């Protein structure tokens, strides 16, 4: 039965319910007496609310309640928090403005809620919301970074003069400057990292139910981390106490980071359920998702790399402006700092690095972690610089990278990270072989005779997953610990339930986590159930993001399994009258080595619960829990190469080939890993070629629907050729590194490097739409 253990491409257990339409998402949940919420949202990006008239709305059919921002403030519901404190270079703290769940006075982005209508039906709520009359006085708007930092820019929050939230640095400035002075060559680039809209398949939703008799709340919500939601809602928002609040995140249709955060809508639903004494449901529509789900990326960067006469990198200097939108979302502050600048060493031995990051407020939707969160931006900076340097220095881009690769481990970078293990050369070799790198010049020449512009682009990414050692992140300003917890429950009949604080919203945990357990015990995965997403069932948890579920979540299960197995072995030894040390677990049986004596797992479990014949002093039961705190980040890395062709008549890019060679450490389920890589690559390619959130100067989101926001479709993407080169992560018991974000982190630089190679012009911003590529060619 090892066939279902680690390393087996087992078909996903959860897919039966998903593909037969029997998943259970928040919107599917039916509760007696349910009411429906519809938010009144600001059409303006920056305005003062002069008055709100709710009288007409209150009288509309079916209306149960109309609540405004002033009421939420009057009820002392806490402002939204940011969970990671960043200290500026001058030693001051973050300049954070208040974010009430509904705006009482000033709205700072188009789509911000100012009131909510609760009614018997969704349509009645919507009708009544149209009857709420809000009188706005429009204020001047700063809709992007440049507009926000220019002298005399509109001021968003009084707390943040000049709209600057923090001005943070990392690395040694003087040493870096000195290395630049001494450099033989310097390469520099101005980079825009385009803003993205996450667009999970399932829009956000919440159902809140208040039980008056028990003063108890239940919140069903689309969350990647229900325990974190419970903690934040109770500790900071004064709506419910932690022991009086159950948060359930049932099936969730994709998150990509955007469902980490606790949003105003969930808070309002919870608060309103007590106010109107009825269960309240809100299901966002796609338009609301565009306007209110935290966006991703949005950096302006100037980056320079210094080389000595042997083409060795001697220094890297980076200055980045990060757009955090109108308010600081839950982890927004950490994304352009500790999740970005700490990865600027890439796969390279760079003795001196200095980075400065200035985060600013703009009149746009808040920006926070989105698949990769800081690491795609870092990887893009480093890999665009490497490619540009190779062209400037007239050396082969693969060779320039190879010459600068880190080859001994552990390796301490100048920007906090200590890489534990890797083999960057192996990934690059694998990718170069897969794409026939050596044959490219001939292919390019042939394409040219056919009037086509062909290019090749490399990206050697590294990222940090398995976030993270609690003590380390605590010292860097994190407000939480980033361990994970698990409980292994062996039932009296020998079936197993694993309770995990990780949350699956597409990752396939119900299969992969079961594989770990099934493999260790030698039982089929059908005997193992994964329980997650409910704070009443699962003891505690920190949730799923940053590709942490295998490295951290499964490590916790591993630890709990060890405890369970140790106890089970004791029971088996007692039953078999053998020594505990002689017991081995095989094919679901506890065997005495070298004999034919054995006892099956169900009999051991039964013995644990009947407790008729246990070793002296042993507690009954077979159930153990564990908390696992990582020892380090994990460092997935790899090499992506793509070959593309540009139609110079239209500027359209098509893929000839895309190869990915990743090192994820142990692969739990190679099929699921492949799916994760495909999805990540789609998002990375999406960023490079298709996706980009655009605001006009008045702060209106121009790309507020799929008519204008280009989501990648299957036919935009090539058939990927994947391979794996493996170094096992020494930091966790499974040797896993994480694979959820790699594609989104590594792909975009490969694509832009290939297009700029094809057109012979390095001035190209993402998304490299046909229009932009055509202009880059023709002016």
């Amino acid at each position: 039965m090892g066939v279902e253990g680690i390393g087996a491409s087992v078909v996903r257990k959860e897919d039966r319910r998903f593909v037969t339409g029997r998943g259970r998402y928040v919107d599917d949940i039916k509760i007696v007496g349910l009411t429906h919420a519809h938010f009144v949202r600001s059409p303006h990006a920056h305005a003062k609310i002069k008055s709100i008239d709710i009288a007409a709305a209150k009288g509309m059919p079916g209306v149960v309640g109309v609540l405004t921002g002033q009421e939420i403030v009057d009820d002392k519901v806490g402002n939204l928090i940011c969970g990671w404190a960043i200290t500026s270079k001058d030693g001051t703290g973050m300049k954070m403005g208040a974010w009430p769940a509904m705006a009482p006075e000033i709205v700072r982005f188009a789509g911000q809620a100012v009131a909510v209508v609760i009614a018997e039906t969704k349509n009645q709520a919507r009708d009544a919301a149209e009857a709420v009359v809000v009188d706005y006085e429009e204020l001047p708007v700063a809709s992007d970074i440049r507009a926000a930092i220019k002298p005399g820019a509109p001021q968003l929050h009084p707390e943040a003069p000049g709209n600057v939230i923090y001005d943070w640095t990392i690395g040694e400035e003087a040493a870096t400057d000195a290395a630049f002075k001494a450099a033989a060559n310097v390469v520099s680039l101005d980079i825009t990292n385009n803003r993205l809209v996450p667009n999970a398949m399932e829009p956000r939703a919440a159902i809140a139910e208040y039980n008056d008799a028990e003063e108890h709340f239940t919140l069903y919500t689309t969350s990647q981390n229900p325990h974190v939601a419970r903690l934040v809602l109770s500790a900071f928002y004064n709506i419910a106490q932690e022991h009086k609040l159950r948060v359930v995140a049932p099936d969730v249709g994709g998150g990509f980071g955007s469902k980490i955060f606790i949003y105003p809508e969930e808070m309002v639903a919870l608060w309103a359920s007590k106010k109107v004494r009825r269960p309240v449901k809100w299901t966002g529509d796609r338009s609301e998702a565009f306007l209110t789900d935290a966006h991703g990326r949005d950096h302006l960067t100037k980056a320079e790399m210094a080389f000595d006469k042997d083409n060795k990198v001697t220094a890297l200097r980076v200055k980045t402006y990060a757009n955090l939108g109108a308010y600081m979302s839950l982890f927004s502050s950490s994304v352009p700092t500790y999740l970005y600048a700490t990865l600027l060493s890439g796969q390279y031995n760079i003795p001196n690095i200095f980075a400065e990051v200035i985060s600013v407020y703009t009149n746009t939707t808040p920006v926070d972690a989105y698949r990769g969160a800081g690491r795609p931006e870092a990887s893009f900076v480093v890999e665009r610089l490497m490619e540009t340097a190779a062209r400037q220095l007239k050396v082969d881009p693969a060779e320039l990278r190879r010459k600068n690769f880190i080859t001994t481990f552990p390796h301490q970078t100048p920007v906090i990270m200590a890489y534990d293990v890797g083999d960057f050369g192996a990934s690059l070799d694998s990718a170069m072989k897969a794409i026939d790198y050596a044959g490219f010049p001939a292919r390019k020449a042939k394409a040219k005779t056919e009037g086509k512009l062909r290019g090749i682009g490399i990206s050697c990414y590294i990222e940090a997953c398995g976030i993270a050692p609690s003590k380390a992140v605590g010292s860097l300003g994190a407000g939480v610990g980033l361990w994970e917890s698990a409980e292994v429950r062996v039932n009296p009949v020998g079936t197993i339930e694993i309770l995990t604080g990780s949350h699956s919203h597409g990752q396939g945990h119900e299969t992969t986590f079961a594989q770990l357990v099934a493999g260790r015990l030698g039982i089929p995965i059908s005997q193992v159930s994964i329980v997650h997403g409910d704070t009443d069932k699962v003891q505690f948890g920190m949730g799923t993001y940053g590709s942490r579920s295998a490295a951290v979540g499964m490590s916790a299960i591993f630890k709990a399994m060890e405890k369970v197995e140790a106890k089970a072995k004791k029971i088996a030894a007692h039953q078999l009258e053998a020594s505990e040390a002689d017991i081995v677990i095989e094919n679901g049986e506890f065997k005495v080595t070298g004999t034919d004596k054995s006892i099956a797992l169900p009999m051991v479990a039964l013995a644990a619960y009947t407790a008729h014949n246990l070793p002296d002093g042993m507690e009954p039961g077979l159930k153990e829990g564990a908390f696992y705190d990582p020892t380090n980040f994990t460092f997935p890395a790899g090499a992506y190469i793509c070959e593309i062709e540009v139609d110079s008549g239209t500027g359209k890019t098509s893929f000839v080939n895309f190869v990915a060679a990743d090192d994820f450490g142990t692969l739990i389920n190679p099929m699921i890993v492949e799916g994760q890589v495909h999805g990540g690559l789609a998002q990375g390619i999406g960023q490079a070629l298709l996706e980009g959130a655009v605001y006009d100067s008045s702060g209106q989101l121009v790309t507020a629907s799929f008519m204008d926001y280009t989501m990648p479709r299957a036919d935009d993407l090539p058939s990927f050729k994947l391979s794996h080169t493996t170094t096992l992560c020494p930091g966790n018991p499974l040797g896993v590194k994480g694979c959820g974000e790699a594609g989104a982190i590594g792909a975009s630089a490969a694509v832009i490097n290939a297009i700029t190679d094809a057109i012979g012009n390095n001035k190209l911003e993402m998304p490299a739409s046909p229009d932009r590529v055509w202009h880059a060619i023709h002016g």
Partner: protein
Amino acid sequence: MYETTYHRPASVDEAAALFAKGSDSKYLAGGHTLLPVMKQRLASPSDVIDLGKIKDLVGIEPSGAGIVIKAATTHYDVANSDAVKKAIPALAHLASLIGDPQVRYRGTIGGSIANNDPAADYPAAVLALGATIKTNKRSIAADEFFKGLFTTALADGEIITAVSFPVQAKAGYSKFPNPASRFALTGVFVAKTPAGDVRVAATGASQNGVMRVPAIEAALKANWSAGALDNVTVSTDGLLSDIHGSSAYRANLIKVMAQRAVTAAG
């Protein structure tokens, strides 16, 4: 969606009578334009009159030297019609490029040209082929039908019953889809009449919707070949400029798509 009253008439006359009775009536064909707008609450017709079930409005018939496509015929049926493929393959090809399979199964030619979206595909074919729009009241020449963005010569309540396409000596369509919506960022339909006249229509490019392109027509009339357009410059005057393409880019696309349409036409 606001409340509305749905009607399913059996004939064109009944549909027109129902339309006249309603205070703010709308015809419904495939619903792929009207229903999204209603769901967004941007349209709130009192009465929705479904033309899709009227038998007389569905079907494709050869007629003399041309082909008649009835108004409620779906894009899918046009794309897969042997009669259309034989008579005007470029038209079947155009229909096959509209939207996605769901859109092609529901969307209709009558709905498309009545709506006259500036980025829709059919208007380019109707204009370049010199088709005639038949309504329950009259016949309208293509040159008289399209009146700018989302505007046509149709009177209030007038029903398109069919579009009659003449078969031309040569015809070709080339579309560059908008990467997001997949409507035409620019699509160009070229046609050469048996008498040697050339008609070229571009969609997606102009601020005023589908348009003829005289510079290209003249060059192709002199020499029907893609190469004949190499040195033609299309003016950017009146062309759209947005996040998907500048007016210069669209002017270029008009030329490049025209060249590819000529190559496709043979």
